[in-house]
């Protein structure tokens, strides 16, 4: 092993793993105080759940010997035959496999049963996440061979989780009081903490995806920083114009939108390209979170608006801005753009259909949703018998 590359990938693995707690706080701050622990628990528990699944079979299904570019096998059951750089790669990838289902929790906040979520995440990880990761990142995967680009997970992580969130939301239905009551974040400082951790961890996510401490890692880190910043600027500018107020939640949301959109592009773009992608994502996602009000689906914390829409935005913009890899604006013609469009649609359709099926089956069998009384009283006390804050003792 090259110790410098190993040092960077060890570090990047730790950073990406840290993103899931970060996501927990990002989401946790946005729910009402009666549901904060349920939100945190769903995210933390995802780590505990996906880790063994990935070791046992998830990794092998994604990166094992390919069956027709569609899915791996069980040759690496229990991380068999992995050592050194390969084992480190499996570790690094594990952290991606963990955060992806965790992203979904935001959409179904404040009403999805904890047990149902645990089942959903487990099944989904094996039958949706691993195949898509195989398509995109396994050298024999069909998307990989097709020549489309996804540097650090626009397709595999964000579009995949975002459209699954949409499917789940459609099965689950809206929260009581959605569209009528003011359902406001209970602690924006907690959300900002999550944002800070996500931002930090995202350097591991994107710059780590170079798989070495090399020039591409540097390029990716610079693009990541620019994407996040311009995303925040774009979103805040858009909301300031529309509502008259720049908000902290807007800055946080815009930064995440920018990070999402830069993810598939980070290793391939110039600083100027990163700026364009960031600011477009910030504005587009600000507009997209308004869609739920128009169409009436209750995507509680805007996973669709930010991760799905931001992921699609980034995935397509790669076709324009990839300075290495054949972007349209860099003389590569439309071929990359077309490929990006095709694979985006493919992941969209596959993940939506599969996620919808899993959700329907779980709904019929164990039920996805808490009882109305539990929703009113809050999930913390009714599902976990705990209270988030007791500040007067």
């Amino acid at each position, binding site marked *: 092993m090259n110790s410098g590359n190993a040092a960077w990938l060890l570090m990047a693995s730790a950073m990406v793993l840290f993103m899931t707690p970060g996501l927990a706080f990002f989401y946790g701050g946005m729910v009402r105080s009666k549901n904060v622990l349920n939100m945190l628990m769903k995210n933390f528990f995802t780590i505990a759940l996906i880790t063994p699944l990935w070791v046992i079979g998830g990794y092998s299904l994604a990166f094992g010997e390919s069956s027709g570019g569609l899915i791996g096998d069980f040759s690496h059951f229990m991380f068999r035959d992995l050592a050194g750089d390969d084992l480190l790669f499996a570790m690094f990838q594990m952290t991606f496999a963990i955060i992806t289902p965790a992203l979904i929790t935001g959409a179904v906040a404040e009403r999805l049963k904890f047990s149902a979520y645990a089942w959903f995440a487990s099944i989904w990880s094996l039958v949706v996440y691993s195949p898509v990761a195989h398509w995109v990142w396994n050298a024999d995967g069909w998307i990989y061979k097709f020549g489309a680009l996804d540097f650090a997970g626009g397709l595999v992580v964000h579009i995949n989780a975002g459209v699954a969130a949409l499917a789940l939301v459609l099965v689950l239905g809206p929260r009581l009081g959605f569209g009528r009551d003011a359902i406001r974040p209970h602690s924006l400082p907690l959300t900002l903490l999550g944002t800070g951790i996500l931002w930090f961890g995202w350097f591991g996510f994107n710059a780590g995806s170079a798989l070495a401490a090399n020039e591409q890692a540097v390029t990716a880190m610079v693009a990541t920083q620019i994407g996040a910043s311009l995303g925040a600027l774009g979103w805040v500018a858009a*909301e300031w114009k529309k*509502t008259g107020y720049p*908000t902290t939640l807007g800055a946080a949301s815009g930064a995440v939108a920018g990070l999402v959109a830069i993810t598939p592009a980070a290793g391939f773009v110039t600083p100027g390209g990163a700026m364009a992608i960031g600011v477009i994502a910030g504005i587009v996602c600000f507009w997209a979170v308004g869609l739920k009000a128009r169409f009436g689906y209750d995507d509680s914390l805007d996973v669709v608006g930010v991760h799905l829409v931001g992921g699609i935005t980034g995935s397509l913009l790669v076709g324009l801005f990839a300075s290495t890899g054949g972007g349209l604006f860099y003389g590569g013609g439309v071929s990359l753009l077309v490929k990006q469009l095709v694979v985006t649609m493919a992941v969209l359709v596959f993940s939506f259909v599969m996620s919808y099926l899993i959700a329907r089956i779980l709904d019929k069998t164990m039920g996805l949703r808490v009882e109305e009384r539990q929703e009113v009283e809050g999930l913390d006390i009714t599902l976990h018998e705990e209270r988030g804050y007791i500040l007067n003792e």
Partner: protein
Amino acid sequence: MKLVIAFIKPHTLDAVKDALTEVGVTGMSTSEVRGFGRQSGHTEVYRGAEYKVDFVAKTRIDVMVDDQHVSAVVAAIEGSARTGEIGDGKIAVVPLDEVVRIRTGERGPDAL
């Protein structure tokens, strides 16, 4: 004896406390309430969605006083809590049958 209850703007509390101390009040209890009234609330905006919040933060003061001090106490609150702007709040005077000081068991005006 009377219980004087006042709903005031939170930032006037220090002034009200000083005014009450000046007219001889030696004890009071305060708490946070959310008031609804002519002073309309405010809007809040989260991810582009605007929410109307009707309730405004107010401070409630409860003071037990003996009968001859009531009007001085009410006047002291009026004077110190008034900013002249909408939302300055209300004072209510409630009759009391009895007051007890827990530590000593004293009753009536002595308990104040």
